[in-house]
């Protein structure tokens, strides 16, 4: 699960990391009043950042500076409501604009190949790390946390020195260890600070100090671990979530909406991807990824069908079931129930093999469903049906 920058910063702060203050606003007026209080506290300018769960906010014009409350309100009017990669901006983060001395990159990520937590740092912060990795891989410093002992101080020091943060050693070590602690505390797959920055601040007595702080934060959480962190469920951004995703989650179905016209219902994630691929190969476009999961009963099948049909683009459906734990006759009953209830009828091609396939075939024949023997054949017929329907 992806969470917004403001929420990610909240998790970092709770783990004791240095994150400069911020507030979240949903209207230009709220931005104005937030800016007023930040400027009154002595900041020269404020930064207004779109809160959306996609990258590239800056390039899209979703991050802007303002020197006055009025300007902040005007900038916020432009950002709120704008669309970034198809996502409408509904809220912004408002903070004092930092006086940045230098930007760095630091992240903790689950390294699948090494089966350990990987710390990645770079003195080239503020830019996309994938780009740095592709162009100048030696500009990235990596170190693995020990699977039982975690990240040692010596490892964090090594990372800091190699990133050129020797001048802020204590802070850098604290932040590196804090990233690993955050990952473990919330079961995150990724905790990324980009930029981690040395900023210049003027304290109350007028002296200028430099400090290492987390200016941005990106955290993604492991969906499998959410049941044991019920408090994190509140961070799910329902504004940005397709309502179908929430329904699917409730029903125990894995569902991802795509742009095509052929609805797919499959058991098993690998087979569901394969079914999409074969639809494409046969000249069609899949409308969704849908895995009904193992051992699905007829009610879950009916719910899946409802979700597929809720997409008005869908003009044909391909059902592909390879029974193992899942029983073919249960799926067939679910399909028959679903068709009796559904509000619109689209051509459907059903292929059920494996456990109780014979019983399924009898049920489907009696209910006059169109069936196919192989996956390739089913895909070809679903594509043909979609073409006829779309013509």
């Amino acid at each position, binding site marked *: 699960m992806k969470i917004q920058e403001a929420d990610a910063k909240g998790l970092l702060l709770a783990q004791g990391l240095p994150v400069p203050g911020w507030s979240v606003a949903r209207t230009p007026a709220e931005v104005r009043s937030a800016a007023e209080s930040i400027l009154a506290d002595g900041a020269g300018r404020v930064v207004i950042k779109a809160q959306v769960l996609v990258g590239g906010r800056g390039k899209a014009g979703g991050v802007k500076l303002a020197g006055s409350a009025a300007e902040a309100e005007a900038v916020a009017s432009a950002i709120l409501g704008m669309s970034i990669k198809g996502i409408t901006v509904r809220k912004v983060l408002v903070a004092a604009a930092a006086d940045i001395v230098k930007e760095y990159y630091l992240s903790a990520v689950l390294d699948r190949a090494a089966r*350990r937590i990987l710390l990645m740092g770079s003195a080239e912060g503020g830019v996309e790390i994938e780009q740095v990795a592709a162009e100048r891989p030696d500009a990235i410093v990596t170190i693995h946390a020990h699977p039982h002992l975690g990240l040692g101080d010596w490892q964090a020091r090594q990372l800091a020195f190699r990133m050129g943060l020797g001048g802020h050693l204590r802070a850098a070590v604290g932040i590196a260890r804090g990233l690993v602690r955050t990952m473990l505390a919330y079961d995150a797959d990724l905790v990324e600070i980009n930029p981690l920055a040395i900023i210049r601040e003027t304290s109350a007595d007028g002296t200028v100090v430099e400090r290492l702080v987390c200016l941005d934060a990106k955290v993604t959480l492991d969906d499998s671990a959410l049941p044991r962190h019920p408090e994190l469920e509140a961070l799910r951004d329902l504004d940005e979530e397709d309502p179908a995703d929430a329904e699917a989650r409730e029903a125990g179905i894995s569902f991802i909406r795509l742009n095509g016209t052929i609805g797919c219902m499959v058991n098993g994630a690998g087979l569901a*991807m394969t079914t999409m691929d074969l*639809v494409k*190969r046969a000249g069609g476009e899949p409308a969704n990824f849908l895995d009904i999961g193992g051992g699905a009963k007829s009610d879950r099948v009916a719910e899946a069908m409802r979700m597929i049909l809720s997409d008005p683009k869908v003009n044909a459906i391909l059902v592909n079931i390879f029974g193992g734990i899942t029983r073919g006759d249960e799926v067939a009953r679910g399909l028959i129930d679903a068709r009796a209830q559904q509000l619109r009828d689209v051509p459907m091609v059903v292929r059920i093999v494996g456990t109780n396939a014979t019983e399924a075939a009898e049920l489907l024949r009696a209910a006059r469903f169109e069936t196919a023997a192989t996956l*390739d054949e089913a895909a070809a017929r679903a594509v043909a049906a979609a073409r006829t329907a779309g013509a």
Partner: protein
Amino acid sequence: MSVLIGRETRLVVQGITGREGEFHSRAMQAYGTRIVAGMTPGKGGQTALDGTVPVFDTVADAVRETGANTSCIFVPAPGAPDAILEAVGAGIGTIFCITEGIPALDMVPVVEAVRQAGARLVGPNCPGATSPGRAKVGIIPDSVHREGDVGVVSRSGTLTYEAVQAMTDAGIGQSTCVGIGGDPIIGTTFLDVLQLFAADPETRALVLIGEIGGAAEEEAAAWAAEHLADIPKAAFIAGRTAPEGKRMGHAGAIISGRAGTAASKVAALEAAGFRVAGSPTELPGLLRVAGHRG
């Protein structure tokens, strides 16, 4: 011979008295797998599978009393990492974890403990392995198999059944089919299984079934190019149409930026001498083209 499991397998099922555990244990026993013990804490002294299998409170008891050497775990996700560690502690050499939905970070210290003990973990979130005619550990339906000499390794469940069924229908049998699981952190990788197949004299051809996410297929392909140059090899990669940044059902099936795409995996496999199928049904034909006779 076969890999991971075989006639010498003496299986303890952890969670044998649960619904899934009992159902699949029956199927494994019917297939001919020697299930020597079940394990459910608090049910020691009882029996399972109509009195044919003694149940123990601990895996250590099961090992001591029955000589179990392999474990199959059906324990729900919150208790599964502990179940794996219990099997390791009892000296079990080969552990299959079928359980789905274990948090990835829970597996990091567990796979390290397995490695340090010199044991082998397959999974989690895997369908297990079947050596046709010899034994099955896990949940792969019996009907898809036929005895033969093709080693199959896959990250998926039902997709494996689909591919293996296509091979069986075409008269091509399997030495062992291994499902390694679709999670980000797994105990046994494609590379590990290819190494086992390379050392198995009865495996004379290979089928690798991968999917988007991670770089395990690429890693295995590089090794196969060097060490398995002269045996017929075919592969299928699921997820050519998967969008970037979305988790496609399996926790591990996600394209991040440019990494983990189907195109990258297909290219690596082709460069390593695998014939890559556009549909699972093409695998038997491609094996024959690659020189497989059987």
